[in-house]
């Protein structure tokens, strides 16, 4: 861990900042902050733009169809790329002949995966990577049209030696199961920093156990804890594989030129994508540009250059032409990532009053050929029990690799933990909320439970109380997610003499509203409106910033946006301050006007003030600084906890097994809310993703063929507008005084508790607990003993 003082600024000043929850315990706290950062931002109530329901600054482009996504990029001479994919779940390539494809008219480049640099006609199978899932990329072509590219793929001759395969989590764990890897594979942290590490053992298809996370390792003495328990519950839970289903598939347009590589890419991190390409192609960082102006959803699956970015770049380099390579929906569903499934055996011990004495988790999960199926952070961190241990195993199968997916591990983990806590409450004859009040040390969640119970009208029914075939039930579940500081996040602010203002950053807006919140923060500092600020982001030509994932973008991009604005403002006002004979700090900007705080008769418009700038532009750039609160600082460190509580009401038709989620109340806290409208949209989206996970979504692989059965959106079921419950969001404002904006994220917490809350509500409705997601009508009827 980094030394907290290492990044401490040399010149500091002291600020009194808001601290706590308005209406509950709001007070002030003194923080020592870098001297060049602005004064404390008051609570939202006292602000004009921040905390308000501001319309998205890019809404115009989106509603007119003018917003250009990666697939919309059209460059002169552009070619179309396409992958050849494995028809076998496990095979060795005996020989590969691409000569006919190379000669096919209209084909400009052919690459073979793993041998991109070697331009040959025939490849000996021994030199090629083994095929480990049905749909794994083997080769790619670039051609003048998509049809020619398809034809060329048909001309590639591959001789396969099919090998035994295993796609099922349980089968893959058995001794003698076909091995996915014979060698120990490198941990690439592909699925959101959960689960195994490089140090863990690999035996058969099992890797692990991992006994720690970034929250630490085992605590206390679990055996002693169980011995002290009055009640011990041990249950098994299973969750399915969920695919991201980004509406825009993965893809890139690469334009390799002698002086510069430009890659347009649908991705969550322009910086990481550029760094991948720099490393792979040995180019200077300054010669690679990655652009992501608009992108159609990522949910964790689009970090770095990835398969499409790398292949498009190779094909462009070899052909000398720009190349577009977008995945088709089927390829997306098979190869572009998923949330690993899980089999969890969770055991808790408790005293009669609810106090937890021990928590013990054993988990297995498969991220296919990838790693990252750990689920333990919820068990470890939600109810910080003094006696805790876990053993998490990753299980390799012949299936597409897992990727980070909105709250990796925590969604699976919360289903198990929150189901078990619900069961424990019943066993102890306690209300589930009262039990949580007893065992949950998190102050924010305590406030959330109270607020949510009021809004929801929490009054738990007796299971099976309804007499008709349609049973109603309610349930509650909680979320926990870490807060991350990522200091590699910079914003440049330019004020032009004409009075226009721009904010520039490499950060991308993946749909969450990053552009808008930057505009709000900048506008607040300058006394302007959000729409007055031009936001230029999603391009590595601008200052580097973090990737959008882990609910950390708002937390880490708004402080540098405000700090840079503040510094540019000081430069802009120098002339005016001199003319008025006041200090720049004595000048206030509000409602488009610039005036002296103590003497409002000295005033002019913002545009007039800008005209007095000494240069045509004033420019300031700031980076995220160490956290104010004396938390650990560094480039990638978790601190704090983001909590959430969600309540669900369901009706279950015991005749058909059909479940309808009637209502969800989602109570969330994310520090200072910048834009409640966007936050609500994120929460609604998280809840619906949870509804899909609870009831519908399930990747199915045929164990006989090893092929994914539901590769289309017709067979992989997602919720549509008519399936959704009424969702009510309760936002609890909370000030921690940890940065100049004091913002935290929302993306992951919104998605963690929903499925567990629905599962608990289904139990409350029908009196039978279902331990496996998704909860389908057939499972309901089976649980009720009807089939």
């Amino acid at each position: 861990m980094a030394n907290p003082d290492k990044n401490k600024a040399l010149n500091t000043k002291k600020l009194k900042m808001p601290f706590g929850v308005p209406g509950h315990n709001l007070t002030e706290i003194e923080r020592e902050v870098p001297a060049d950062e602005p004064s404390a931002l008051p609570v939202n109530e006292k602000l004009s733009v921040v905390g308000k329901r501001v319309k998205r600054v890019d809404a115009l482009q989106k509603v007119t169809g003018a917003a250009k996504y990666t697939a919309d990029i059209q460059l002169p001479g552009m070619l179309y790329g396409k992958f050849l994919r494995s028809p076998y779940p496990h095979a060795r390539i005996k020989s590969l002949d691409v000569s006919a494809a190379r000669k096919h008219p209209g084909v400009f480049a052919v690459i073979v995966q793993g041998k991109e640099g070697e331009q040959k006609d025939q490849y000996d199978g021994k030199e090629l990577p083994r095929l480990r899932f049905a749909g794994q990329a083997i080769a790619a072509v670039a051609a003048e049209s998509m049809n020619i590219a398809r034809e060329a793929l048909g001309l590639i001759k591959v001789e396969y030696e099919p090998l035994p395969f295993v796609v099922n989590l349980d089968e893959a764990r058995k001794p003698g199961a076909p091995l996915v890897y014979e060698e120990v594979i490198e941990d690439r942290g592909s699925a959101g920093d959960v689960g195994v590490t490089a140090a863990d053992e690999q035996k058969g298809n099992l890797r692990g156990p991992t006994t720690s996370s970034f929250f630490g390792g085992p605590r206390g003495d679990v055996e002693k804890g169980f011995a002290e328990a009055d009640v011990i519950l041990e249950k098994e839970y299973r969750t399915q594989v969920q695919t991201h289903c980004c509406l825009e598939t993965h893809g890139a347009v690469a334009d390799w030129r002698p002086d510069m590589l430009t890659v347009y890419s649908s991705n969550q991190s322009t910086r990481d994508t550029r760094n991948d390409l720099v490393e792979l192609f040995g180019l200077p960082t300054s010669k690679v540009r990655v652009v992501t102006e608009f992108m159609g959803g990522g949910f964790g699956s689009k970090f770095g250059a990835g398969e499409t970015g790398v292949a498009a770049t190779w094909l462009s380099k070899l052909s000398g032409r720009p190349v577009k390579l977008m995945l088709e929906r089927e390829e997306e569903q098979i190869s572009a990532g998923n949330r690993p499934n899980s089999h969890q055996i969770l055991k808790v011990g408790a005293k009669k009053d609810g106090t937890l004495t021990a928590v013990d988790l054993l988990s297995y999960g498969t991220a296919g050929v990838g790693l990252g199926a750990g689920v333990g952070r919820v068990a470890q961190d939600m109810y910080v029990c003094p006696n805790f241990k876990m053993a998490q195993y990753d299980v390799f199968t012949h299936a597409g690799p897992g990727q980070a997916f909105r709250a990796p591990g925590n969604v699976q983990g919360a289903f198990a933990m929150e189901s078990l806590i619900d069961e424990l409450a019943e066993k102890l004859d306690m209300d589930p909320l009262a039990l949580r009040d007893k065992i949950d040390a998190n102050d924010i969640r305590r406030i959330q439970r109270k607020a949510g119970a009021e809004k929801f009208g929490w009054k738990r029914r007796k299971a099976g109380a309804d007499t008709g075939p349609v049973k109603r039930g309610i349930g509650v579940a909680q979320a926990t997610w870490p807060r991350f500081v990522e200091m590699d996040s910079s914003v440049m602010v330019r004020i032009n003499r004409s009075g226009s203002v721009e904010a520039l950053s490499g950060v991308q807006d993946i749909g969450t509203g990053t552009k808008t919140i930057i505009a709000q923060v900048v506008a607040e500092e300058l006394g302007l409106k959000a729409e007055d600020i031009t936001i230029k982001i999603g391009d590595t030509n601008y200052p580097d910033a973090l990737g959008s994932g882990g609910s950390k973008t708002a937390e880490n991009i708004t402080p540098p946006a405000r700090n840079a604005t503040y510094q540019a403002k000081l430069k802009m006002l120098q002339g005016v301050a001199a003319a008025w004979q006041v200090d720049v700090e004595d000048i206030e900007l509000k409602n488009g006007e610039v005036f002296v705080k103590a003497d409002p008769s000295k005033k002019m418009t913002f545009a007039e003030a800008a005209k007095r700038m000494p240069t045509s532009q004033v420019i300031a750039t700031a980076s995220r600084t160490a956290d104010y609160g004396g938390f650990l600082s560094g480039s990638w460190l978790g601190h704090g906890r983001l909590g959430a509580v969600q309540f669900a009401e369901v009706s279950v038709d015991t005749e058909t097994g059909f479940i309808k989620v009637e209502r969800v109340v989602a109570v969330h806290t994310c520090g200072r809310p910048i834009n409640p409208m966007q936050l609500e949209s994120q929460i609604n989206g998280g809840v619906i993703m949870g509804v899909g996970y609870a009831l519908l979504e399930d990747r199915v692989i045929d164990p006989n063929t090893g092929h994914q059965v539901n590769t289309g959106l017709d067979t992989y079921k997602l919720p549509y507008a008519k399936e959704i419950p009424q969702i009510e969001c309760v936002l609890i404002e909370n000030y921690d005084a940890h940065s100049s904006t004091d913002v935290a994220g929302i993306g992951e917490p919104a998605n963690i508790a929903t499925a567990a809350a629905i599962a608990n509500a289904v139990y409350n409705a029908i009196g039978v607990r279902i331990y496996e997601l998704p909860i389908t009508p057939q499972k309901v009827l089976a649980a009720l003993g009807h089939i």
Partner: protein
Amino acid sequence: MIEFVLNRQLICTDKPAAMPLLDFIRREQRLTGAKVGCGEGDCGACLVLEGRLEEGRMQYRPIVSCLTPLANAHGRHIVTVEGLNLRHLSPVQEAVAEHSAAQCGFCTPGVIVALTALCLSEAPLSPEKAIAALDGNLCRCTGYQSLKKAALAVAARLPVERQNRAIPWLIEQGWLPAYFDAIPGQVAQIPRCSPAFAPGRPILGGGTDLLVQQAGQLMAEAPNLLCERWEIGGICEDGDSCFIGGGLPIAAILENRTLNRHIPGLGRCAPLIASTPVRNMGTLGGNLANASPIADLAIIFLAFETRVLLNGPSGRRELPLEDFYLAYKQIDKSPSEYLEGLRLRLPGARRLFSFEKVSKRTHLDIASVNTAIGLDFDGETMSRVRLSAGGVSPVPLLLRRTGAFLEGKMISESVLGRANALMQEEISPISDIRGSADYKRLLLRQLFFAHFLKLFPEHLSFENIHNEGLLAHEKHSRFRAREGAIRLSG
């Protein structure tokens, strides 16, 4: 030559007939507002408006352009999001922007088109209809709450009565660009084309199945495009029967006034079948000839005395719909014949009809099990009964024995209980991705009872049906109709 108006511009192209309209719009015309989301008609990111000249006025419906054969655009007005842009934001665009309903924005152009289609429709409005206008739009970001708010805001600003006036009103009020005014004249000048039927070549209707399965192959093969030809037939009443053209889209059939007069409740089946855009495209002929055992229209029309009309080089012939299905995915039709339409014997005035369907997802899904029933009465007894079921045998099944058993009997719980026992012998469901065999048996039983509970709520009690329904542990349960629980469609 394929000719149509794309937004403001007349298009004449010799691109392949089966080229997806979306590819033409994006690649050839460089209009990138419509997006490629799934390529299978499920996500609605590629929605465009299709305008047809009907009785001198344009009628617009949303369609998924990824599955629309380019040639089906012939003689039409195709409108993408770009064709809806004005100097200011339209009230639809405004509503989506104001309610933060565009998150990542990838689905947004499709949403704008779907909501504009709602404005263009002259059917009476309701909040439910406003939300249903988005039934074919997939959004992975917003949780649909903001989209629903936008839809309701749009509906609230539309006048309730817009009969025959939708387009002029929308132009006057700044909802639609003024060029829409001139479209009927432009479209009228495009010559109709009815090419001769080329036996042996594939037959392409609305594209909703074939463009998913074999788009590349169709592009090379110059298929028979029969939408135009079939429309001439339309729906015509002829004495005691009615002809229904095989090229008619599902929506046109379900919404048809003549058919709804004879088959009460037919229109209310629509929300359970596909999505709004797919219903506007998928044809009767396609739904029947695709030979899916769960084809909704096959199940519906099996509840009536219906004959299939085939046309081919050796002339016309017809046969009962139930005999059209031979085995799994096999039909009594040679490759050189095409399905001209159905001849429906018009039911008597007292004919009752019910359609029920259960699928994994309530809307926009294919059935796990579906069933329909047509009932005639002679006094208190059932005189003619036609009961159909899908998903429980290799073909869309007419349950002849169960129907015959019911004929001549009065409705009672015990009769239905015995009918169910017989029905269970007539079916042979298999376990697949849509459910286990036992689950489907149970579903069909429930849906069979649901037909009668829906049609005769006064005569029957759920409790008594269940006493006859073989599940002892349910004897205490009492029926309480709840929409979305047992889905009552009729």
